[in-house]
């Protein structure tokens, strides 16, 4: 089923996709002329496939549950923010805060993601085939951020228990983020993440980063500071 956003309103398209009649067999949708609209495909909650042909605005596929959304273009700020499950695949570049606070599911970005990719992520898997901007994985709590390109400054600043794997160069690490051992268990874990998206990359060549756990744990030595 096709929607044309130059003919239908954003509200009409979103409302249709958010309230799928499960008695019908219609599960595949194409959206043409997205024209940079915001919040397109936000709040989808059924197992449907949506392909967006063109560039979209902010918060595309935010809060996604179960749906598979493919964007054949670039996305604005906060793609797949607070995603719960499902798959969001961006074929172009992503703007800031991609996958912010995502709790589950997978976000794949074929191009680059800019600043604060995976900020406060809480369980989502984010795979960026290009590079990520500064302060990516800021305060990331859990989940995996896999970067096949490079990372800009302050990667993983104030990170909790999310895992970062980076194949390229890291300009600098943020506070309390350190390089960690890439042991067999980690290689296996990363292999599974890459294979799930048919990505051919050698997991042994990645470096892993995570929390030094000195910032978010209470230390009795610091008691006088509080």
């Amino acid at each position, binding site marked *: 089923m096709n929607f044309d956003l130059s003919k239908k309103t954003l509200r009409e398209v979103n409302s249709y996709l958010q309230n799928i009649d499960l008695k019908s067999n219609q599960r595949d949708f194409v959206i043409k002329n997205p*024209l940079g609209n915001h919040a397109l495909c936000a709040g989808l909650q059924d197992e449907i496939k949506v392909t967006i042909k063109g*560039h979209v605005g902010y918060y595309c596929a935010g809060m996604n549950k179960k749906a598979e959304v493919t964007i054949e273009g670039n996305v604005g700020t906060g793609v797949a923010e607070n995603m719960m499950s499902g798959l969001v695949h961006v074929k172009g570049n992503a703007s800031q805060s991609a996958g912010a606070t995502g709790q589950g599911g997978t976000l794949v970005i074929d191009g680059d993601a800019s600043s604060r990719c995976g900020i406060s992520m809480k369980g989502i898997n984010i795979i960026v085939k290009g590079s990520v901007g500064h302060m990516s994985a800021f305060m990331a709590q859990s989940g995996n951020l896999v970067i096949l390109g490079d990372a800009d400054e302050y990667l993983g600043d104030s990170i909790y228990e999310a895992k970062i794997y980076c194949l390229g160069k890291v300009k600098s690490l943020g506070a309390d983020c350190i390089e960690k051992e890439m042991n067999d268990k980690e290689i296996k874990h990363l292999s599974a993440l890459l294979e799930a998206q048919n990505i051919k990359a050698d997991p042994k060549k990645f470096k892993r980063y995570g929390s030094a756990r000195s910032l978010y744990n209470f230390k009795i030595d610091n008691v006088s500071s509080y």
Partner: protein
Amino acid sequence: MKHLLNQKKTIPILKNIQDIDLVGYGKSIEIFKQVGNPKDVVKKFSLDKFSGSHAIGHTRMATESAITTDGSHPYSTGEDECLVHNGSLSNHNNLRRSLIKDGIEFKSQNDTEVAAGYISNSLKNKTSLKETLTNGLKDLDGFYTFITGTQKGFAVLRDEIACKPAVIAETKDYVAIASEFQAMAHLPDVNKADIYEPKPGIVYSWGS
């Protein structure tokens, strides 16, 4: 309010006519501002009849000064210069005082006008636009995306934290910069353009 005036002629006229506000001067850049719906403002000034090498449009959500024509962007504090700004500067009062000492004149309490004055002051000393904006990274405290135009070209700069958005589309025929893609979704061939986000703290400039 069309102002395409030579500076030498402008000053005596202004002294005699108190009801005129000068929004800019020079030989090639024209500035139009008004409070109202952008559609009406565009119609009133017949912007569709204009041609040129570069143009900047700006609508403002007022934070640092009132919703008035005076508080509207672009700000121009030098010949054929203009600046629009998304963001807010925190050290504009101190900077305004020091720029006044250098002979820069201000007409409003607006923070963006101070940034425009800062740029004029630097360009006056033969510093390039690119170098001026690079120096601005340490002198202008706050958060911002700036677009500045001169007779020769234009430049864009985001502060190093980069919480204010910007997107650039480049084709072989034009360069477009906007806060978000939606603003340029109707440009010709934009879907074939190279679209990217300017990196924080890096000056991107064209023709300047």
